[in-house]
């Protein structure tokens, strides 16, 4: 019997190479090991593990091993820490020299309608953990209106590129009296909205920056009892209606941060702690500031294109109960009518819901591929099917190597992956060998998997458009295109067979959201990686000195949607390309040549003589190092950092050949 068990459970056994590499990683840093022990600790061990971590951090700080300390801090800073622990980590963060924190990528002004001191510290910390070193400005408590309205305030001297309006329900200015009739309440709501929208507009006009505005949480009492939700002048009803107005009407330069949702996650009574409001004007029970700050930073990170993109799932005891290799398709627990089986199905339904809004799903499992696939094909109750999985890897290779291969096949970075596995040993190995991959700690109950993912907000949404709902179709269609490419004779035949049509033109209000999303998300095919908020792109749309271009591409397999953006400004004789980016799902289709033809026509129509562009290297955009050379530009300059400048004279230019037809314009 024992033999059979050993044979069928290779998941439990770690191969030797893996063990050796792990030892090496551990030897390299006691800090990482301490962080790992903290993450894997059960509730009883957590206190001791955290104290050991603090000692290890102290040692590193005293020895001035700051780079190492910074990396370990980032890894330790999960949203599941308690308030006291985050305070402690905050102290170590303060010890880091500026050059280790990195140059600020964000200038964030926090204007609070409550005491934002702790929240600000925590937001800074979680932004740092998300790879966004930030410079912060915090206004005094309760003066957010004056800061915005007074043009000589500190806010404008600081000149932020993002504002966080940290307000709560007490900052509402037009609360109704219970006796007000519905018309009066509706007038008050309009005035309320107008007041806030006036603040946003003033700040936006003066700074052109994106504004993160809290919606409103509610107090824990209901003076109208069961009627609170129905009476138009009831406080909770008024706040709910106000939140609805914010959701429906906020302009694209305002991001509504869903504090009401955070409060509901906690439960209204547990969310507020009046004592700490009275003593320190804290907006909620201090314990919840951790999640609050993490959520704000996740929203900002999402807007900067740093959300993760792909959920990688283990199979045995993660998507179903039991081990398919041992138990067989009839023995695994994933059926209706069985409590545990239905738990696994709930998790599958959650993963499917993520997939429907554009999160890529992949499988990484130690199994025989055929056996594993069969469950998706043949089990009648499975929610996830093979067509939901963009990349299916089941073999006996170590998972670290398999995760690397998944990232490569999907053409995304390792730091875009989240890996869910019920096996603590696998989780620990991946966290140490492939630290870029996010691996949440989960219990052995499938019901907890959803909660673990929800708490981390790995896939935080900055904006949602039709593109997102179709994204996983693109990946499937790409696989089909790949098959043709191998079957079709040559590249030209392949491109011709795609029957491509492109639509190209300036950014218009209808394409603003998608354009901004691409500007902030594209890493690989991105010549300069300059990020811009919706507000900043809007300003360029209206600026006669700037040219904005977007291109969409469709082919016989489907519509790829808006996939390329170019922003340029006109200088004396030339069109200077500031930003050129393209979604990698349309690589090698000739779209960049098509876009260049359009740019040249546009420049010539304006009587310009040159198109000029530059390349700024990042760890992710090596793909386009030779972009301008490949398009026939002449090199004009290069520096030690790898930056290059290019120029294309427009005289005697012949348009480049493509297999893309010009579609009707938008």
């Amino acid at each position, binding site marked *: 019997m024992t033999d059979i068990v050993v044979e069928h459970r290779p998941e439990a056994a770690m191969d030797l190479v893996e063990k050796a590499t792990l030892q090496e990683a551990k030897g390299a840093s006691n800090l990482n090991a301490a962080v790992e022990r903290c993450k894997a600790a059960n509730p009883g061990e957590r206190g001791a593990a955290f*104290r050991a971590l*603090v*000692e290890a951090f*102290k040692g590193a700080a005293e020895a001035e091993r700051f780079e190492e300390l910074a990396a370990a801090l980032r890894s330790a800073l999960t949203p599941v820490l*308690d*308030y*006291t622990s985050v*305070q*402690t980590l905050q*102290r170590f963060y303060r010890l880091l020299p500026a050059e280790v924190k990195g140059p600020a990528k964000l200038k964030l002004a926090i204007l609070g309608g409550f005491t934002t*001191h*702790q929240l600000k510290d925590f937001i800074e910390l979680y932004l740092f953990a998300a790879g966004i070193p930030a410079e912060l400005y915090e206004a005094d408590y309760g003066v957010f209106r004056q800061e915005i309205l007074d043009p000589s305030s500190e806010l404008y001297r600081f000149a932020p590129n993002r504002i966080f309006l940290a307000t709560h329900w007490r900052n509402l200015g037009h609360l109704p009296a219970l006796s007000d009739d519905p018309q009066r309440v509706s007038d008050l709501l309009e005035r309320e909205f107008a007041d806030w929208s006036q603040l946003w507009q003033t700040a936006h006009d003066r700074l052109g920056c994106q504004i993160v505005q809290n919606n409103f949480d509610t107090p824990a009492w209901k003076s109208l009892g069961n009627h609170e939700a129905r009476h138009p002048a009831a406080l909770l009803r008024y706040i709910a209606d106000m939140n609805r107005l914010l959701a429906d009407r906020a302009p694209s330069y305002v991001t509504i941060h869903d504090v009401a949702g955070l409060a509901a996650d906690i439960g209204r009574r547990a969310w507020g702690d*009046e*004592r*700490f409001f*009275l*003593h*320190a004007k*804290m907006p909620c029970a*201090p*314990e919840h500031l951790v999640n609050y700050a993490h959520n704000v930073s996740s929203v900002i990170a999402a807007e900067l294109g740093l959300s993760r993109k792909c959920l990688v799932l283990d199979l045995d005891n993660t998507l179903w109960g039991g081990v398919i290799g041992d138990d067989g398709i009839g023995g695994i627990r994933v059926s209706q009518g069985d409590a545990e089986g239905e738990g696994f199905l709930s998790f599958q339904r959650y993963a499917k819901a993520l997939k429907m809004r554009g999160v890529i799903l992949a499988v990484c499992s130690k199994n025989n591929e055929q056996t594993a696939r069969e469950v998706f094909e043949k089990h009648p109750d499975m929610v996830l099917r093979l067509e939901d999985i963009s990349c299916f890897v089941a073999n006996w290779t170590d998972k670290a190597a398999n995760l690397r291969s998944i990232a490569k096949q999907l053409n995304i970075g390792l730091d875009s992956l989240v890996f869910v596995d019920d096996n603590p040993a696998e989780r620990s190995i991946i966290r140490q060998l492939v630290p870029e991959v996010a691996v949440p700690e989960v219990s052995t109950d499938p019901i907890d998997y959803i909660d673990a993912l929800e708490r981390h907000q790995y896939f935080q949404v900055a904006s949602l458009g039709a593109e997102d709902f179709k994204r996983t179709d693109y990946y499937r269609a790409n696989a089909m295109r790949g098959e043709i490419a191998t079957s079709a004779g040559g590249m030209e035949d392949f491109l011709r067979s795609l029957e491509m049509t492109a639509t190209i033109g300036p950014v218009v209000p209808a394409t603003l959201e998608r354009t901004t999303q691409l500007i902030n998300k594209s890493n690989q095919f991105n010549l300069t990686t300059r990020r811009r908020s919706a507000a900043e792109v809007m300003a360029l749309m209206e600026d006669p000195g700037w040219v904005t271009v977007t291109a969409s591409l469709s082919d016989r397999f489907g519509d790829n949607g808006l996939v390329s953006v170019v922003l340029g400004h006109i200088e004396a004789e030339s069109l200077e390309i500031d930003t050129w980016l393209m979604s990698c799902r349309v690589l090698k289709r000739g779209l960049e040549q098509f876009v260049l033809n359009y740019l040249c026509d546009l420049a010539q129509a304006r009587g310009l003589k040159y198109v000029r562009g530059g390349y700024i290297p990042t760890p992710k955009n090596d793909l386009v190092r030779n972009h301008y050379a490949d398009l026939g530009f002449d090199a004009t300059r290069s520096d030690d950092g790898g930056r290059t400048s290019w120029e294309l004279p427009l005289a005697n230019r012949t348009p480049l050949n493509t297999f893309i037809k010009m579609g009707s314009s938008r």
Partner: protein
Amino acid sequence: MTEVHDQLQDVFRDVFSDPSIVLNEKMTAEDVDGWDSLTHINLIIAIEKRFRVKFATAEISRLKEDSANVGSLLQALTGKLQPSK
């Protein structure tokens, strides 16, 4: 030393990240590095969590006063930990 005293000492060590803190009843905010009005709130939160007790709004004020010391904290705490008569 009592068990409450030792546990409170642990809380202080955690909140102020200083394992060398040794509590005595006469200690005040002046004697502990970093004990200000902000960290006072942090301390209250950590104590409430560790001992599963809740301080009233006025108690939090009293414990913030200049005359308050570790002794008053211990007294308030043990009062809450005793089984109600």
